[in-house]
C-alpha cells in the first residue's frame, strides 16, 4: 500500500471521529505550545541578561571586595571590607592598562523634593563614571573632582527620578533631601529607557562616592571599583595588573586566595547565562511533562481505536493486508494526530509567546531550535506511543479479528 494512500486513509479515519481526534490532539497541542512558550520565555531572559551586561560597555572590569566563591557566586557585597579608596587611587596611578576608574558606593532611600517623594537607589561614583558607562548628561553638569574631594552634597538625577520629583520645573540647582541630607541637583542624565529585562535604567541618582560614604551609608569602604581598560585587547592586561597590585597592597601570601574579585564582561555573562539556562531547562522540562501526558492520550485513543476496529482489521487481512500494512496504517494515524497537534501547538506557542511578551512586558525569543525540537518531539511521541497499539493490531490473527464481536 502506497504511503500517500495510507496517509489519506489515516486522515479519513481521524475525520470520522472529529471530536475524539481533536481532544487527543489537544493534549499534544497544549504540550508543544507550552514547551515553545517556556523556551521562548527562558531564552528571552537569557538574551536580556546578556544585553544588560553588554550595556555595561565592553572593556569594563568590575572589582568587588571579597573572595571569589564557588560556581562564580559572590558573597554579599557587605560581607568583605577589603576595598578602600586608596586601592582605587593606586589602581589609577599604577596600572597602565587602566584608562578610567570610578570607586563605587551604594545607598538606598527616600528622596524628598518639596512635597513630593520618591524611593530609589543612590549610587556613589567617581568623576569618570560617565566615561566608563558611556552615559550622557542631558542638561546641567556632572560633579567635578573638586566636589568629590570635598564630599560635596551634589547629585545627578536619572530621568525617572527627575520626572517624579520635578514634574513641572527644571530640577537643576534645586535642592532635594536624601535621608534628610540636603543635596543640590547639578544635572539630569539622558533618558536610557528600559533595559531588556524591563528594568528602568533611569530610576537612579548619582552622587560623589565620598559623599555617599560619609553622609549616607557611613560604611567606610568601597562596594565596588568600576574600571575601563585602555582598549578591548588590554582587558586581560588590566585584570592582571589590578590583581597583582591589590595582592601586594593587601599583603596576600603567594599561595593564598585573593580577597577581592575581578569580573570582566565574559565572566558576568557566563554566570548570568548559566543561571538563565537553568531557568530555561526547568521551564521546558515542566512543559514537556504535559507533552508526555499528551502522548499517553494518543496511545490511549489508538488502543481504543484498535479494539473498535478489530473487525476492520480482520476484513483488511482477509483481502490481503500484511501485518506491516496494518502496522503502518495505525502508526501513521498516530503520527498524523501527533504531527497535526505538534504544528498547531507550535502556532499556539508562537502566538502565546507574543501575547505574554506584550502583556507581561517580558521579552520572549522563539528560535528555530525550539521549533525543530518541538516538531521532532511530536514525531517521536507519535511513533513511540503509536507503536504499541499499532503492533497490537498487526499481530492479530485474521480469523480472530474477523470473528471479533
Amino acid at each position: 500500500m502506497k504511503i500517500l494512500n495510507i496517509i489519506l486513509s489515516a486522515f479519513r479515519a481521524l475525520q470520522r471521529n472529529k471530536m475524539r481526534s481533536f481532544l487527543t490532539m489537544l493534549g499534544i497541542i497544549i504540550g508543544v505550545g507550552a514547551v515553545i512558550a517556556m523556551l521562548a520565555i527562558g531564552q528571552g531572559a537569557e538574551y536580556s541578561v546578556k544585553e544588560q551586561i553588554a550595556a555595561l560597555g565592553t572593556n569594563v572590569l568590575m572589582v568587588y571586595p571579597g573572595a571569589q566563591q564557588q560556581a562564580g557566586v559572590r558573597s554579599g557585597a557587605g560581607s568583605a571590607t577589603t576595598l578602600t579608596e586608596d586601592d582605587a587611587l593606586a589602581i589609577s596611578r599604577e596600572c597602565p592598562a587602566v584608562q578610567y576608574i570610578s570607586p563605587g558606593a551604594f545607598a538606598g532611600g527616600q528622596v524628598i523634593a518639596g512635597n513630593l517623594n520618591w524611593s530609589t537607589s543612590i549610587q556613589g561614583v567617581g568623576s569618570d563614571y560617565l566615561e566608563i558607562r558611556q552615559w550622557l548628561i542631558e542638561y546641567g553638569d556632572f560633579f567635578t573632582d573638586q566636589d568629590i574631594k570635598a564630599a560635596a552634597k551634589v547629585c545627578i538625577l536619572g530621568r525617572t527620578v527627575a520626572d517624579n520629583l520635578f514634574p513641572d520645573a527644571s530640577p537643576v540647582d534645586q535642592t532635594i533631601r536624601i535621608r534628610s541630607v540636603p543635596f543640590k541637583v547639578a544635572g539630569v542624565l539622558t533618558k536610557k529607557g528600559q533595559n531588556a529585562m524591563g528594568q528602568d535604567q533611569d530610576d537612579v541618582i548619582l552622587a560623589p562616592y565620598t559623599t555617599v560614604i560619609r553622609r549616607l551609608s557611613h560604611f567606610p569602604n568601597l562596594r565596588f571599583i568600576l574600571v575601563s581598560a585602555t582598549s578591548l585587547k588590554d582587558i586581560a592586561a588590566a585584570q592582571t595588573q589590578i590583581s597583582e597590585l591589590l595582592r601586594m597592597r593587601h599583603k596576600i601570601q603567594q599561595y593564598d586566595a585573593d580577597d577581592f574579585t575581578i569580573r570582566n564582561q565574559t565572566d558576568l555573562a557566563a554566570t548570568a547565562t548559566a543561571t538563565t539556562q537553568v531557568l530555561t531547562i526547568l521551564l521546558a522540562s515542566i512543559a514537556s511533562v504535559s507533552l508526555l501526558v499528551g502522548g499517553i492520550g494518543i496511545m490511549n485513543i489508538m488502543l481504543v481505536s484498535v479494539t473498535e476496529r478489530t473487525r476492520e482489521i480482520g476484513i483488511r487481512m482477509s483481502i490481503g493486508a500484511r501485518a506491516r500494512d496494518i502496522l503502518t496504517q495505525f502508526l501513521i494515524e498516530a503520527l498524523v494526530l501527533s504531527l497535526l497537534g505538534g504544528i498547531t501547538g507550535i502556532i499556539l506557542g508562537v502566538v502565546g509567546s507574543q501575547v505574554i511578551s506584550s502583556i507581561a512586558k517580558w521579552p520572549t525569543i522563539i528560535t528555530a531550535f525550539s521549533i525543530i525540537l518541538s516538531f521532532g518531539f511530536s514525531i517521536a511521541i507519535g511513533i513511540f506511543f503509536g507503536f504499541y497499539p499499532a503492533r497490537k493490531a498487526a499481530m492479530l490473527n485474521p480469523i480472530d479479528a474477523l470473528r471479533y464481536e
Partner: protein
Amino acid sequence: MIHDLAPSLAGTNGSLIQIEHLTKVYQLGEVDVHALRGVSVNVSKGEFVAIMGASGSGKSTFMNILGCLDKPTKGSYLLEGIDVGKLSRDELAMIRNKKIGFVFQGFNLLSRTSALENVELPLFYGPTSNKIRKVKATEALERVGLGDRIHHYPNQLSGGQQQRVAIARSLVNDPSIILADEPTGNLDSRTSVEVMGIFQELNNNGITIILVTHEPDIAEFAKRHIVFRDGKIRADKVNSKPKIASEVIKDLPLIDDEEEAA
C-alpha cells in the same frame, strides 16, 4: 519472498486444491472441539462446488482454512501445488490477496466507505497504480450490476447490493478461486438467485467457486455437492444438471420490480 508462489507442477494432477487428512481441533478450556476430523478432497480448476451439511458440521472451519484465514491442526493443503502450511504470515496474506476472493454471509464491508473504495481495497495491498485501481474496481462493480451505485455507502445499499459489492471486491484482483460462506444466508429468495446468477457467470468465465449453503435450492446451481457431517465429508457427488439462474429468475414471481429494500 522465500517460497516460490508459482505453481510447482511436481505432484500436481491439475488440481487447484488438494487436501489430505485435514483436521482442526479447537481448544475451549479443558475441552477439545473436533471441528474437522480428517477431510480429504480435490477441487479442479473451473469447478462450482456447493458445500452443505448440518449446523456445526465444520463447513465454515473448512472454508476458513481454504481461504488461508486459519491454519489446520493437522493435514496438508496444497493450493495450485503450493503447500500453504509452510508459508509465512506475509506469504499467506499475499495468497489471500492474489489468489483467493472471500465472500462472507455478513458481507464484511468497511462501513462509511463507498462501494468503490471497498472494491478497491484488495488492490491497495498490491502493486496496482491508483488509476488502474479505480478502473478495475469500477469494472468489477459493473460486472455485478452495480455500475450506478459505486459512490453509495454500505448503509445506503440493500443486503443484496451489499453482497454484490462484496462479490465485486472478491473478484477485483482476478483470483483463481472465490470462496463464499453462506453468501445468500441473509438474502431473500429472488435476490439469492440473482447472486447465484453472478456466481454462475463468473464460473462460466473460468473462476473456480466454492460456496457453503444450507438451502438445497441454492445448491442446485452448483455443479458438485459435498456434504459435511461431524467434521467429515459424508457425500461428494456431481450435480449433472445444475439449474441456470438466469432462467430460474424469469419464472420467479415479481413482487416489486425494484425490490431492493435491505
